């Protein structure tokens, strides 16, 4: 199997889909001439030309709206947000138009668009550039939301996202574009709405997505030394959510910890806990625990940034709390 970085895997998915379907085009700030702010679209302008790889001005609401219109007219735009923090500018287009168009037009208009980009803390980018946006978007019906940083998954999920007739928001991570992993050769897709057990375990279910999966794997390896067996469930797509996978795991381990980057108030982790308590109540041996960002704007200072984000220490103590250890 090829070893690719996250950016290379995404690039491969985009390239393959553009080769396969002439209605797919890419648009965003610096995606063409500069090969993308994070080089996800490297080489694509040379390959597909300026009609299909389009540099846009700094105008998130504008090019997101242009994407909605293009999708309604039959194209399949892939919009790059340099970071999802900037996409907050475009929330009106995303939430009010992309998400609701199918419903409000009585099914006459589809918006088969992908909006992709990194979110969450990167590295010393300050409070305005470090937010997780998943909980802001996930409660708006009409959107599908993918959140992954694993190269192989990013490729398979991106291909599914482009082919989906709904608007799919694709959440990546700035810190992990250069992190590599095995990516299967050739054509494959990963369906939206199907989670993945990243590690089997028997004592506690740890639900994590995006870059928290990597923290979860570290913590699980650490706890294995103490004889604690952690099962890591990665939903991969927040909407639709693979609830059955989570429920089955909790029914096996009887304990739940949700590990998420982002603030914990009314977060997506809250939703998971709510669903589990409702559906697996009789299987719970302890109240579920959540590990989230501290409820403060992200500090610029590097050490403080690490303190605010979920730490291995806090995750371990949450796991021990549900194990009554």
């Amino acid at each position, binding site marked *: 199997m090829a070893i690719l970085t996250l950016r290379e895997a995404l690039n491969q998915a985009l390239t393959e889909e553009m080769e396969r379907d002439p209605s797919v085009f890419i648009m965003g700030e610096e995606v063409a001439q500069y090969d993308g702010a994070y080089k996800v679209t490297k080489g694509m302008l040379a390959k597909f030309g300026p009609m299909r790889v389009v540099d846009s001005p700094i105008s998130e609401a504008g090019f997101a709206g242009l994407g909605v219109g293009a999708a309604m007219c039959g194209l399949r735009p892939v919009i790059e947000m340099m970071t999802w923090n900037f996409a907050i500018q475009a929330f009106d287009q995303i939430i009010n138009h992309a998400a609701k168009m199918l419903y409000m037009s009585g099914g006459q208009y589809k918006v088969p668009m992908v909006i992709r980009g990194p979110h969450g803390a990167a590295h010393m980018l300050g409070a305005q550039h470090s937010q997780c946006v998943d909980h802001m978007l996930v409660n708006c019906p009409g959107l599908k939301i993918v959140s992954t940083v694993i190269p192989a998954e990013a490729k398979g999920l991106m291909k599914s996202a482009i082919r989906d007739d709904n608007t799919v928001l694709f959440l990546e991570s700035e810190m992990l574009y250069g992190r590599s992993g095995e990516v299967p050769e050739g054509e494959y897709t990963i369906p939206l709405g199907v989670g993945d057990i990243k590690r089997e375990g028997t004592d506690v279910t740890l639900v994590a997505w995006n870059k928290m999966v990597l923290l979860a794997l570290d913590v699980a390896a650490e706890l294995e030394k103490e004889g604690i067996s952690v099962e890591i469930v990665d939903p991969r797509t927040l909407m639709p959510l693979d609830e059955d996978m989570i429920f089955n795991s909790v029914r096996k381990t*009887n304990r739940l910890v949700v590990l998420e980057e982002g603030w914990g108030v009314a977060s997506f982790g809250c939703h998971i806990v709510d669903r589990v308590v409702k559906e697996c109540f009789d*299987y*719970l*041996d*302890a109240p579920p625990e959540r590990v989230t960002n501290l409820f403060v704007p992200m500090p610029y200072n590097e050490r403080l940034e690490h303190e605010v984000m979920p730490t291995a220490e806090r995750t371990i103590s949450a796991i021990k709390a549900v194990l*009554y250890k």
Partner: protein
Amino acid sequence: MATVMEMPKLSDTMSEGSVAHWLKKEGEKVSAGLPVIEIDTDKATMEYECPASGILLKILVGDGQKCPLQAPIAVIGKEGENWEEALEKYKAKKGGAASAPHAEAKKEAPAKSSSANVTASSAKTTTVPDAAVKASPLAKKIAADKGINLSSIQGSGPNGRIVQRDLDQASGGASSASPAIAFGSGAEVEKIPHTNMRKTIARRLAESVNTAPHFFLTVSINMTNLLNWRKEVVAKLPENEKFSVNDLVIFLTSRALKRHPALNSSWQDEYVAQYRDVHMSVAVALPNGLMTPVVRHADKLTVVQISQETKRLVKIAKEGKLQPNDYAGGTFSVSNLGMAGIESFTAIINPPQAAILAVGATVPTPAILPNGTVGVEQRMKVTLSCDHRVVDGAVGAEFLKTLKQFFEDPVSALFLG
């Protein structure tokens, strides 16, 4: 406005109630003050009055079911009234109004002592409604599946929450800890569930043996005179006034206690409570346990009165209808196994009393008679169990000396009692 009926506390030692039988069905008319339910307390089955008049809208705790004290057991209201709404309101009120557990002064035997500085400080009990058992949902499910009683398990989670591992220990721990052949293994087992009464007996008597240091004094009494005298007297009495040897035992023992109040007392945390009146607890064996109804003011009653009161108490005890008033507040106990042919035995003190008299059978015994010849005497052995915290050996011995004198020369009781 509908009324929510609660499980009443019908005895001092009652910690949960179980419904023996509803006398009315859902939808039937009930009247305030008339019996509506029979409740099994730890001691007896008691009728309980309806708190309100109207329709018995809903029975929440059915026949044979148990619930904590003061838990709602039924809703009474007008025809067609919404009982669920009434129950919700009741719960909201209970939860909101910081329902202060009402303290109830426990009525000890009336200690009219003016000299002793007896305050009721230690004689208070607080009744707190049993909180629901704290257990994780999983623990509750496992317990329900395996038939484990959660209230018997110590929780190791926060605030004593019972969690999965506590149940693992409860079900698997015991067997793995004792690799030796288990008690009664291989034998077929019939599991007889504890009745409330059995549990109370077990708890109280274990508490008595474990906390009151017992010692035992036995004396042999010549009953020849007493038996002859009784025969003569009883022959002249109408049927309803005839009395037994046991009635005489209660009569003479209560007279002897008047002379030795140290035996008619109880150990309390701060003091020894010594009672002026004698309320005699009489052990009565019942098919499902043991009750000790109380002959009140036994020291002031005639033998015939004692006999009649004892008969009454035994009758209602056998019907399982003793009221708390019938068995609470005894100051001394008599247990007689003579009729079963037991010659002598030691009884466990009925807490918090200081002593109990175990009475054996009267048996013809070879003896040297006062005139120096060898003959037969009717002899009865009595054994006094004393709580050494209250009663010392010599004090117990003095009491038995008086008792022996009264039994052997019953007329002396008239003058000395």
